[in-house]
């Protein structure tokens, strides 16, 4: 078990390394192939008032003329030991883990990311609880009442749910509930949980529901399918043959097995979500990681994009690992080797 975890952790690190290399290439190598020069890069970092000499100087200071490998090496080194950035008025220290230093905002990226994380975390945790509960409940009921009016209705709603883009449902919800009826918070409102839990929930309820609706629909479909499959398994028949009550058969034997894959998918989904619910955060103007990322992309703030990508990839890779470990706990057949 321990060796397995260690091996997986090393694998995860390697994976992150590859992700970082690919990301780095896309943003620093590919544009060069298109003829973008070091000074063009530097142009992004200087203000509009900068003269050409300033631009050249900045390019030099940032080492933008160095070979890409050297630049990448510098970036990696920064993660472990921190980096120094010389921007003229002194040397700015970007402590480890230094995932980059934004020359647009003149700030290290990492604290910014940490700053945005609680918002995304709030959104992800709240929404995922709602969609897990709602999706599984509806899915189980649907499976048990297969072919009934409820089943058909629920599945139509679920299929609609997965067919509705969150930026459409979000917009409708905002204009209906926030701006029309004024019963929910308008876009952009966020209060940290530590400040005022009630307000935190009030502000997030609409984003939660919007995000949860989409996923609840998908989970209802998954749960229903899994439940139908499980209830057709031989061991369910065995359980019935023992004379177990149907309710026990469903909850103890059926749900347990049907939920295992759902839980793992759930883990992965939450992992992906922690890296930023881009569409939801943008629709509701929530200052989370997803909004941060789109902002960074719009500003072509490469250090931010790099930092964000690494954090998001980290969550995904860790979610994979945790899900695998979890699976081993839930399903005794899985052996970690």
């Amino acid at each position, binding site marked *: 078990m321990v060796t397995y975890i260690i091996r997986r952790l090393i694998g995860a690190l390697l994976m992150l390394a590859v992700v970082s290399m690919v990301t780095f290439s896309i943003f620093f190598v590919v544009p060069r192939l298109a003829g973008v020069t070091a000074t063009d890069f530097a142009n992004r970092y200087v203000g509009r008032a900068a003269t050409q000499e300033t631009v050249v100087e900045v390019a030099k200071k940032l080492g933008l003329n160095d070979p890409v490998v050297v630049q990448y090496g510098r970036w990696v080194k920064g993660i472990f030991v921190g980096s120094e950035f010389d921007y003229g008025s002194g040397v700015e220290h970007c402590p480890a883990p230094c995932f980059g230093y934004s020359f647009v905002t003149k700030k290290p990226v990492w604290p910014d990311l940490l700053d945005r994380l609680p918002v995304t975390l709030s959104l992800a945790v709240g929404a995922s609880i709602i969609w897990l509960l709602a999706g599984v409940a509806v899915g189980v009921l649907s499976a048990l009442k297969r072919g009934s009016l409820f089943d058909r209705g629920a599945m139509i709603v679920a299929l609609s749910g997965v067919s509705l883009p969150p930026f459409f449902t979000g917009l409708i919800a905002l204009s209906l509930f926030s701006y029309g009826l004024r019963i929910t918070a308008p876009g952009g409102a966020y209060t940290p949980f530590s400040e005022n839990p009630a307000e935190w929930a009030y502000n997030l309820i609409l984003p939660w529901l919007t995000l949860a609706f989409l996923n609840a629909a998908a989970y209802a479909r998954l749960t229903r399918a899994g439940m139908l499959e499980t*209830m057709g*398994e*031989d*061991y369910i*028949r*065995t*359980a*019935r*043959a*023992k*004379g*177990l*009550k*149907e309710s026990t058969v469903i909850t103890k*034997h059926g749900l*347990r*097995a049907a939920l*295992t894959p759902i839980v793992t998918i759930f883990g992965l989904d939450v992992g992906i979500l922690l890296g930023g619910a881009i569409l939801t955060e943008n629709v509701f103007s929530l200052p989370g990681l997803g909004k941060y990322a789109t902002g960074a992309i719009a500003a072509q703030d490469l250090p931010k994009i790099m930092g964000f990508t690494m954090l998001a990839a980290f969550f995904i890779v860790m979610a994979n690992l945790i899900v695998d470990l979890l699976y081993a706990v*839930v*399903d*005794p*057949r899985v052996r970690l080797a």
Partner: protein
Amino acid sequence: MSDNFLDVKNLKVHFPTDDGLVKSVDGLSFALDRGKTLGIVGESGSGKSVTSLSVLGLHKGGRAKISGEIWLDGEELVSATPEHVRRLRGKKMAMIFQDPLSAMHPYFTVGAQIIEAYRIHNKVTKKVARKHAADLLGRVGIPQPDRRVDSYPHEFSGGMRQRAMIAMALSCDPELLIADEPTTALDVTVQAQILDLMRDLQRDFNAALIIITHDLGVVAELSDDILVMYGGKAIEYGSAEDIFERPEHPYTWGLLGSMPRLDREPTERLLPIKGSPPSLINVPAGCAFHPRCAFEGRTGGKAGTEVPELAETEGGHLVRCHLPREERRAIWANEIKPNLESA
């Protein structure tokens, strides 16, 4: 009312599907007493498994339409409430399933699954139930039962799983035990052990035992009576001796011909039955077996038009065939038996 411990009368189990009505079991009757063993034999799709499930009332998961009568120890089960049947399941009647790997829940230990079965019908503490489970495991021949109680099904070998499955079925001392292909998933040597075990247990428990199989070899040594099913119907029903020594149905002959026997040379070829089991939706008109029957031509054209009756040929030996009795016996004696034995 019935005198037999188990008496199934004109049982019909039909499943309406999008493609039509599937007549899985179509007018089946048989009887069985305590301490006796009935073998139900047939190819997959012949309705043998559905029969056993409907006795336990487990067919209702689907949209099955069931009619006829099932008398168990003086109680009629088809018309009984599902709840009543449920209370009987596991206690009065139990089932041993084919492929114990999929029939046992992968997430629970073997012990837990036996304990659960026991505690449904017996108000005992977990501790007591656990002791009982370990005893049962020991009884079915699992070594170190106290330790293996906490093993998961996948940690058992195929034979051990089947033993555990049997232990689970026996947990409440059932009076009727149905074993559905209990040895199919096992190695030949293990098959023999399991069959021995079942024979011993049946003797100890004095239960009525139904063994369902596609392999006549399995029931050969175990059964008192044998019921051969084809297309949802019984086509031959008699004592084990009748079926093995004096089979009268061409299908039974085919089964006998395809039965691997230890007393034969391994180089020898088996006699397969050509073709596939009939579709249960579009059962061939007339005798369901006639498209595959080598002797269909000798029925005078009745085979394709008339459904033959299950008729008594002599003393409790029933056969459903258009061929005249004498001709059947002649074919058996002259054409089939020598072929089977020659080799």
